[in-house]
């Protein structure tokens, strides 16, 4: 067991290195200095307490979308709809926050709950279609993404129109934001918010559900082999729906941490790319909750540092997204890396064996 975990870590690290190399190559081709570029990229993400706070705030929704994709993966489902789920979850949270005036703690709890339900409902439909009609969840979740996009596009201007712009909702009152003054001050005025704590709780909770509960066992069993899980008497259809709903709820809360934590309003006409980045986060973290946490932090650095890099050099900020996309490609083709790792291992152990063989020969003399 331990060796397989190590192997996953090695493959992940190699993917990251290859992705960074591809980014360096692009910087070189476009006439920039990659060392300078990466220096500013990482300094932009980490150089002072405010930027570290921003990196954590950027990573927070990624932890949720990463967990969402990873959780569905464990049950053999591909949730490519995290973007739509977080958008709809974010809308539900924003709607509650703008409509009700309650004590802060209750209001925030209600907003998070609304985001969970919204995201969960959005994933319930593809989950149900998969379980009942065997409709492929990839296509169904893509359709749900665009339905979500257009629902937000018309709902926000109709009911929650901003004061200045048609394209965004009103700003949330301070009481309805996940940002807290003490936290903002602690991190020198950064975007960091309570969402990070929710993310940590979610990581631990999902780790427990997957590895310490019967539900987690059943979900994983359905993912490994649907038919043997059925033969063992598990209700696979129910588990498929449940798994999608939990994945959707995670993405929904991720949407809340983005729209009511990182930002203070919801914009229309944008399908958040964080849902797709979640696929990268899950892959790089080999679908394990702790792995998701670490890889989301890494992507958080890339995302929050790219603006600084762009300001200090002439490298466009899209380099961050390009690196992330390249990392997914390398993670998808990890077979190649695995072969390479195995070849190196075989060579090393071959050398060891030869040494061992030569020892008794010498001793015999």
């Amino acid at each position: 067991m331990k060796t397989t975990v190590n192997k996953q870590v090695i493959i992940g690290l190699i993917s990251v290195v290859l992705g960074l190399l591809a980014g360096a190559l692009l910087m070189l081709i476009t006439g920039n200095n990659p060392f300078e570029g990466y220096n500013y990229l990482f300094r932009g993400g980490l150089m002072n307490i405010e930027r570290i706070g921003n990196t954590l705030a950027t990573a927070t929704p990624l932890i949720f979308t990463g967990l969402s994709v990873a959780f569905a993966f464990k049950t053999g489902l591909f949730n490519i709809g995290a973007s739509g789920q977080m958008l709809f979850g974010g809308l539900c949270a924003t709607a509650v926050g703008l409509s009700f005036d309650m004590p802060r703690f209750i209001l925030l709890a209600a907003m998070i709950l609304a985001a969970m339900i919204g995201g969960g409902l959005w994933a319930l439909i593809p989950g149900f279609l998969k379980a009942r009609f065997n409709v492929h969840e990839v296509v169904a979740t893509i359709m749900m993404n665009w339905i979500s996009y257009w629902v937000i596009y018309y709902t926000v201007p109709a009911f929650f129109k901003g004061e200045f712009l048609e394209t965004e909702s009103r700003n949330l009152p301070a009481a309805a934001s996940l940002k807290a003054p003490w936290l903002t001050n602690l991190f020198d005025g950064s975007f960091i918010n309570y969402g990070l704590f929710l993310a940590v709780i979610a990581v631990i909770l999902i780790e427990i559900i997957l590895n310490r509960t019967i539900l987690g066992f059943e979900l994983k069993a359905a993912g490994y082999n649907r038919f043997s899980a059925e033969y063992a008497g598990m209700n696979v259809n129910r588990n498929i729906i449940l798994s999608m709903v939990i994945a959707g709820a995670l993405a929904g809360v991720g949407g809340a941490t983005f729209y009511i934590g990182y930002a203070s309003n919801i914009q229309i006409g944008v399908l958040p790319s964080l849902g797709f980045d979640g696929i990268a986060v899950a892959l790089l973290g080999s679908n394990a909750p702790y792995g998701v946490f670490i890889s989301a932090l890494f992507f958080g650095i890339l995302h929050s540092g790219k603006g600084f890099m762009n300001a200090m050099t002439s490298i466009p900020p899209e380099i961050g997204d390009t690196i992330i996309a390249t990392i997914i490609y390398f993670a998808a083709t990890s077979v190649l890396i695995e072969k390479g790792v195995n070849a190196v291992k075989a060579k090393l152990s071959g050398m060891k064996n030869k040494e061992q063989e030569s020892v008794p020969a010498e001793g015999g003399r």
Partner: protein
Amino acid sequence: MWAIISQIFPYAMAFTAPLLITSLGGLFSEKSGVVNIGLEGLMVIGSFSSALVISTFQPIYPEGAIWLGLIAAMAAGILFSLLHAFASINLNANQVISGTAINMIAGALTVFIARNLTGSGNIHIMSGLTRFNVPLLSSIPVIGKLFFSQTYMSTWLILLILFVSRFVIYKTAFGLRLRACGDHPHAADAAGVNVYVIRYIGVMLSGAFAGLGGAAILVTYSGEFNGSVAGLGFLALASLIFGQWKPLGILGATFFFGFATTVANVSQAVPALAAIPPVLLKTFPYIVTLIALIIFSKSSQAPKAAGEPFDHGKK
């Protein structure tokens, strides 16, 4: 009512063409057994490379620049699709993940390069294709007004490709092999067909066609590359399913989506449609796709081995 329909028909046709050719590309890929969810990204690549070539050549070679752009888009689409082909055919990678990576790389990389070139990340072209009335045919009553007026040359090119593709898929040896590789790759292999080569051709055709689709958007109704094709690649994927993996089915599905989207776009200007909430019109294609998925779930015509890696040694 007639006035409205005859007015929006040319727009619906212009909107259908890129969707149709991209979906057709997806058909070749899936028929060969490789699911290509990266159509969206390949369209972006096509839109980008044609914008680049056209904006470069238009000042010096105004007549041919657009056609050069279309060729460049197909070439770039093929090159980029090789990434997906290599991952899914040689490395047995998860095809959905590889396709997602293609989408993300395309979106980020093209804007990255465009920003290096133009600063803003958008690329304008001076002019696109001009609309024309097809001689003789456009004077036929009713049909002439609907189908042969105010058309683009690219639309006719794409329709030509559709009918050639239909012939190739169903009436040629290559088409038979293509379908065999998507349904029963091991049987095809036993019959002496090189499954790897056929699948490579399928994926490369999807790259070429999706690239052409992206370019067709640019030279007809958009005129500007901005780093996205607004989900048309995914709609093309939906059309493929809605059309049940048949060329004429795809034609019907994409025209349905093209028409529905055009209706949604003009609904505010047409009193008869303004009463319908726009959100219903905009989400209509996606909801219909979900319903179609349910209806076809029992009798799906999907290639049986689509998405499954083929391993020569494993029987």
